């Protein structure tokens, strides 16, 4: 604490800091003057004034000018002074700290404000940027979306018309656009044009050649003229885009090329987006057109191949290693897919006997074999197909040549040759046998004359004579039987034919019991006897062979309503269900190779049918088979 006069105090105020300034002045105006100065020097120190008398104006001045904190009226105790001073100091320090805080906070506020301001600017900038890029993005997205839709649309199209129509629709948004024209060549001299002429999709072709440009461009005047010439109308301005036909070129040994020509009247400013638009679409368009071209080419090829194969007389099938039919022509079967060849063609459950496929697969070389299908015989030629250059073939081409007829002819020829030879042989044997037989029979007849009737000798001679007579008949039958064709039909009873035939089968019948019940001696049929005899011979012979053990053979004839029935029944095992359908087929035989031609029953059937009859069979109980021949009864005129 310093005590000083006002004049002394002024320099103190200039050099030292005080926490408060208390003035007791004799002259109030002088005191006020000092306080005013003190305020300027030390504004933060609260100023107090003790005055004896203060008028209102002085107080107002003191407050306004010197910012006097408190006025006190003299006299007052020291204690009061201290109290006031302390209070003032207290208030003053509060004020001080508050004003400091205020100052600080106002400063910080300012900084915050600046920060906010710059942030706002940044946000603004950012927003603008984002908005811009968003716009760009959406633009790009939109473009891509359109492109994707375009590609999607193209992918499902299968014709040039549809593809060009899609492009045509897309081009509409540019206005001032002509319809697209596709021009392509596939190796040949011809150039094809696909266009919409007065709204209709049209394909035209030209024999004149013009080199297609290799890059997208506004075409040369020459090319424009080329188009104008072809379409017979002026082309003012156009844009051409070459297409890459990779697949089709591959198929046509690198010869496929195409260009798209779009007429337009765009100005330079509009041209840019159009070129962008086109360059986006060149590849998908190329690919789609390539695909359609390839499909049309391939389907053309495969159509031609199919027709070629279908046109062939023989069944043909491509078969894999497991006998699955990969492809086949119509002759082979209408339903071959997902079937084995032996199922669809031969109606079997397993590979055919004689199938050459395994050999062809194994050796990788053509092989041939014979198979039987539904009574027909096929010579199967298996040609291995090497689709890839692996060492083993995975497919074979089977060609099925029906050799039934030629084989039948061949076997018939063999048969007739054989029969001819047998006929000749029989003739010779008959002659050789007939001479001694003539002697034997004649001699026994002479001796019979001499022998006493009723004697043993006589009855012995009767037996000898009968035996020779029977021998003669057999030989005669043999001769007739082997003579073959060229015998005229005659009216003969079936009974007689049976009786003529049975002696020839004595040896076959030896082990079996024969029951003969013939009741049609009075009725005749009109047949070639030796042929009917062959049929009877065949049936009885088969019946005997069917009976592995001793059995019973019944031969019965009867007539009923103008029909003659001949039944030949055995007690063999019967005919199994699975071959019943086939036994009348030529060459069907259950006998071992070389033991039967398989012609017996088929020939029998054709013979009987030739005479207007039928031949059928049925299984009989408990076991056995009965063949029934029915012939129309014909009486001699």
């Amino acid at each position: 604490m310093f005590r000083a006069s006002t004049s002394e105090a002024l320099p103190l105020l200039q050099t030292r800091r005080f926490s408060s300034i208390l003035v007791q002045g004799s002259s109030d105006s002088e005191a006020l003057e000092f306080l005013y100065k003190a305020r300027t020097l030390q504004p933060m120190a609260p100023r107090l004034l003790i005055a004896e008398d203060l008028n209102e104006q002085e107080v107002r001045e003191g407050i306004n000018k010197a910012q006097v904190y408190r006025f006190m009226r003299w006299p007052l105790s020291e204690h009061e002074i201290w109290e006031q001073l302390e209070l003032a100091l207290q208030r003053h320090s509060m004020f001080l700290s508050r004003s400091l805080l205020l100052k600080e906070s106002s400063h910080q506020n300012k900084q915050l404000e600046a920060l906010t301001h710059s942030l706002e600017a940044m946000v603004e900038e950012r927003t603008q940027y984002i908005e811009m890029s968003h716009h760009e993005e959406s633009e790009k997205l939109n473009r891509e979306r359109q492109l994707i839709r375009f590609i999607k649309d193209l992918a499902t199209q299968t014709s040039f018309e549809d593809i060009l129509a899609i492009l045509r629709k897309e081009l509409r948004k540019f206005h001032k656009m002509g319809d697209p024209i596709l021009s392509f060549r596939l190796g040949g001299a011809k150039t094809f044009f696909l266009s919409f002429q007065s709204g209709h999709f049209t394909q035209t072709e030209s024999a004149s050649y013009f080199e297609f440009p290799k890059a997208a461009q506004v075409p040369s005047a020459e090319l424009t003229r080329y188009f104008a010439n072809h379409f017979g109308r002026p082309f003012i301005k156009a844009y051409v885009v070459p297409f890459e036909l990779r697949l089709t070129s591959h198929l046509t040994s690198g010869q496929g090329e195409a260009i798209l020509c779009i007429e337009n009247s765009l100005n330079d400013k509009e041209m840019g987006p159009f070129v962008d638009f086109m360059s986006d679409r060149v590849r998908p368009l190329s690919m789609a057109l390539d695909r359609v071209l390839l499909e049309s080419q391939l389907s053309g090829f495969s159509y031609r191949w199919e027709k070629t194969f279908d046109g062939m007389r023989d069944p043909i099938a491509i078969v894999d290693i497991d006998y699955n039919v990969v492809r086949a022509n119509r002759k082979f079967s209408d339903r071959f897919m997902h079937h084995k060849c032996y199922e669809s063609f031969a109606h079997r459950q397993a590979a055919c006997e004689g199938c050459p496929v395994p050999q062809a697969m194994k050796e990788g070389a053509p092989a041939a074999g014979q198979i039987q299908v539904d009574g027909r015989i096929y010579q199967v030629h298996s040609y291995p197909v090497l689709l890839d250059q692996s060492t083993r073939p995975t497919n074979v081409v089977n060609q099925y040549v029906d050799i039934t007829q030629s084989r039948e002819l061949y076997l018939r020829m063999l048969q007739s040759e054989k029969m001819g030879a047998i006929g000749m042989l029989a003739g010779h044997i008959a002659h050789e046998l007939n001479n001694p037989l003539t002697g034997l029979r004649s001699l026994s007849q002479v001796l019979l004359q001499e022998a006493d009737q009723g004697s043993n000798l006589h009855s012995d001679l009767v037996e000898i004579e009968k035996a020779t007579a029977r021998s003669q008949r057999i030989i005669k039958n043999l001769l007739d039987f082997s003579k073959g064709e060229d015998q005229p039909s005659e009216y003969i009873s079936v009974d007689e034919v049976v009786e003529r035939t049975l002696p020839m089968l004595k040896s076959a019948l030896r082990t079996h019991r024969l029951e003969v019940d013939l009741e049609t001696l009075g009725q005749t049929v009109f047949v070639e006897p030796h042929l009917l005899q062959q049929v009877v011979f065949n049936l009885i012979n088969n019946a005997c062979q069917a009976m592995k053990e001793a059995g019973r053979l019944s031969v019965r004839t009867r007539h009923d309503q103008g029909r003659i029935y001949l039944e030949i029944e055995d007690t063999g095992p019967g005919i199994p269900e699975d071959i019943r359908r086939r036994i009348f087929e030529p060459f069907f035989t259950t006998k071992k190779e070389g033991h039967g031609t398989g012609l017996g029953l088929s020939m029998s059937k054709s013979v009987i049918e030739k005479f207007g009859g039928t031949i059928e069979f049925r299984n009989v109980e408990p076991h056995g088979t009965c063949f029934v021949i029915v012939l129309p009864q014909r009486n001699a005129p």
Partner: protein
Amino acid sequence: MKILIVDDEALVRRSLSRALKGKGHDVVEAADGNEGLQLWQNSKPDLVFLDVLMPGRTGPEVLKEMREQSEAKVILMSAFAGEHNMETALQMGANLFVPKPFEDIFAVVKMAEDLER
């Protein structure tokens, strides 16, 4: 009646011979064509049974020679019926054709006797 039988089959000769002798005829037998011609020359038979197929000279050859000298009756016999018949036999100069084997030897003898009558 003197009868010549020309046949290479002994049993045929024997049976015919027995049947003919039984009827009271004279019979000479020849086993082939040459012997037949010889006997024909020697014995001058009234009737000849001649087989067609024989070793050496065949029946038709023998018949041809006989016909140059004589009008004697000739019965041609054959077991090979397909080759000859009555018609061809008559053309060759035979008087009768009998196919072998005979159904009844006595019927043949009867026919021969009828021929001579």
